[in-house]
């Protein structure tokens, strides 16, 4: 087991991450009321904040920042196939011919 002293340091980190996640949520909702000119910018901003929040959860609460190689190997394969899934879909969408005049 890890030493109590090490864990108590982690606890302070967990609380800081908790506050950061709440702030991230408030910022996400706050930006909803700021009307960006571009839909793409709106989506990008929301997804960037969500990605940062998910990094905080995965990296600190799930301890992915300091895991064993086996876990990284599992996640590397997962990330590859996740983006392959998204990429295939985007590829198929881009493949749709645009009617002339549109």
């Amino acid at each position, binding site marked *: *087991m*890890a030493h*109590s002293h090490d*864990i*108590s340091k*982690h*606890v302070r980190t*967990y*609380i800081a*991450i*908790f506050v950061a*996640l*709440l702030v991230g*949520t*408030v910022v*996400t*909702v706050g930006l*909803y009321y700021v009307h960006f000119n571009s839909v793409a910018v*709106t*989506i990008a901003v*929301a*997804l960037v*904040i*969500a990605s940062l*929040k*998910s990094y905080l*959860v*995965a990296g600190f*609460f*799930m301890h992915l920042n300091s895991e*064993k*190689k*086996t*876990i990284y190997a*599992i*996640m590397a*394969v*997962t990330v590859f*196939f*996740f983006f392959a*899934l*998204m990429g295939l*879909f985007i590829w198929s*969408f881009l493949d749709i011919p645009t009617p002339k005049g549109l």
Partner: protein
Amino acid sequence: MDIPYTSKPRPDTGLYNAKVGIWLFLASEVMLFGALFSSYILLRIGADKWPSGLLNIPIGTFNTAVLITSSVTVVMAWASLKMNNFPKFKLYMGITILCALAFLGIKSIEYKDKFTHYQVWLKDGTTQTGHIEGNPYFLNHNKLDARKLDHIMFRSDGGHVVAAAEHGGNAKGGHAAAVKIERKDIQRLSAYVPAHSTYFAIYFTLTALHALHVVGGSLVLAFFWGPGSKMWKTDPERFTNRIEVGGLFWHFVDLVWIFLFPVLYLL
């Protein structure tokens, strides 16, 4: 027969077996939700119009905070065991379970609101949204016929009214007085259920699947909090590992919601 490596790490992986197991399971979960998220993007890009403002943002924000709180309390429960503080584990895990119940309770209120909220498409080409008197669940035009109802008493939403004035409604905000709409004037009637539109179909698919994960996760955590906690006395290291594994699943549930909330409520 003893299950190997429940407490001590396997020499080749450096991890106890349950931890490898939960990460493999989470990998499959990433692909499951990934497929649904890609479906969402496909449906949204392919749609002529995509509705917005149909979900309650303050409630969704509050529920997000509830789930984030549960995520920190479950990791604190694990940390408490690491510090040999069993009473604190009980406290933090208890709060986690309460947060899970609160999340589900709030979600069910949101669902109930949708199941009693209607859109009516009239034959003159206009539509109205609002509530039917008596707040019936899941009514639609086919059920009107089956029940031989020749009219509904409809209370329009002020903000969403397209042509309420034609039917005596009030389009200036809030709920208008109930007006009678004859069945013969109704083209289609639907509550905000999956059959209503592509938006609600994907909304209910994603959120219901997520809610099922919350139910499953909270049942496991409740077991660890209750009868399963006896293991702390006999094999504390293995029990701590169980909490870590349960916590990893719970964080994943939180992680999915972190993306679901902006995608469904805000974008």
